[in-house]
């Protein structure tokens, strides 16, 4: 889609550009990296500044920080069980990074780093590596029994084992594609309807009246995208916990 005057240009919002002028260009520091840094700064600031008072009756920021903490802690404890507390920092960091990436990306002029498959696949591959290493460390060779369910007839092994292995390998792909596709689809929709507003608004006398329609759709979409932003971060965290559960308990 070319960026000509009166066409819908929905994909250029995902293009990477250099941030921080010539210094950023010299080290290939893109606006995506800048937004990752910003998200990290916001998360650390929220946690450090919010928890600084350590009040029994929390103030606004402390309540927000505690809400995030308890939400993820319940999620991990509920899925992995009591032993899951060890993996809480990992899941919490992933959840906050994805959540703030999604939410910051909804702000005007901001970039959504979770809309790049490279970023989401990087995160998902990290989850894959960690769960596999945890399973190997806890269970050793028994981990490979995961690919062949107990009680199945032995002659079925040539069929079951490849299918189970491929199913296991497909985890990081489904985890990353889900987040990436949701974010891209949402932002493309927002852009398309926003372009409708501009194009219809230029239609002379009647234009601004019709343009109200896509504008109202966009208002609804922003709310919906906020829901998707939270939901996808939640899905990412809960699937990580489910994979950790499989790694710890090896059923």
């Amino acid at each position, binding site marked *: 889609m070319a960026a000509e005057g009166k066409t819908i240009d929905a994909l250029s919002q995902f293009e990477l550009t250099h941030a921080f002028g010539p210094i950023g260009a010299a080290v290939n520091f893109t606006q995506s990296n800048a937004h990752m840094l910003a998200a990290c700064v916001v998360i650390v600031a929220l946690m450090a500044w919010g928890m600084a008072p350590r009040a029994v009756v929390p103030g606004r920021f402390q309540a927000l920080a505690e809400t995030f903490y308890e939400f993820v802690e319940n999620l991990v404890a*509920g*899925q992995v069980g009591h032993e899951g507390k060890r993996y809480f920092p990992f899941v919490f960091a992933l959840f906050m990074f994805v959540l703030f990436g999604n939410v910051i990306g909804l702000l005007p002029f901001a970039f959504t780093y979770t809309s790049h498959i490279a970023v989401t696949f990087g995160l998902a591959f990290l989850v894959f590596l960690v769960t596999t290493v945890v399973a190997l460390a806890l269970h050793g060779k028994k981990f490979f029994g995961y690919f062949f369910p107990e009680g199945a007839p032995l002659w079925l092994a040539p069929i079951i084992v490849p*299918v189970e292995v*491929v*199913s296991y390998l*497909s985890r990081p*792909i*489904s985890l990353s594609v889900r987040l990436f596709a949701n974010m891209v689809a949402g932002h493309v929709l927002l852009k398309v309807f926003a372009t409708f507003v501009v194009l219809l608004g230029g239609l002379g006398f009647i234009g601004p009246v019709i343009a109200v329609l896509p504008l109202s759709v966009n208002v609804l979409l922003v709310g919906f995208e906020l829901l998707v932003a939270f939901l996808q971060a*939640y899905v990412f965290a809960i699937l990580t916990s489910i994979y950790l559960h499989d790694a710890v308990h090896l*059923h």
Partner: protein
Amino acid sequence: MNEQNDFDARLRQARQKQGLEKADAAAAEGSQALPGSALRIGMRAGVEVVSALIAGSGLGWLLDRWLGTFPWLFMLFFVVGGAAGVLNVYRLFNPRNGAPR
């Protein structure tokens, strides 16, 4: 501490009277059952199948490149990927025994 327990009990009572607790119980029961519509479940199932196909054919292609047997293992593992996709969708609704729902 006692005071707080008392408050929790009274809060639970009040919530039950207002019919709020039931929603909580349903949410706790299906913690993996994500909030959302049939469309969302369909999307999840679709992603599971497609990713298993990608993983399967990718693995087959890599094995082919290593052993120089293109396209036989690719074709075999494409089918295996499809089977793994069906398995993924099955696991979506019936997790392995012992796994919490």
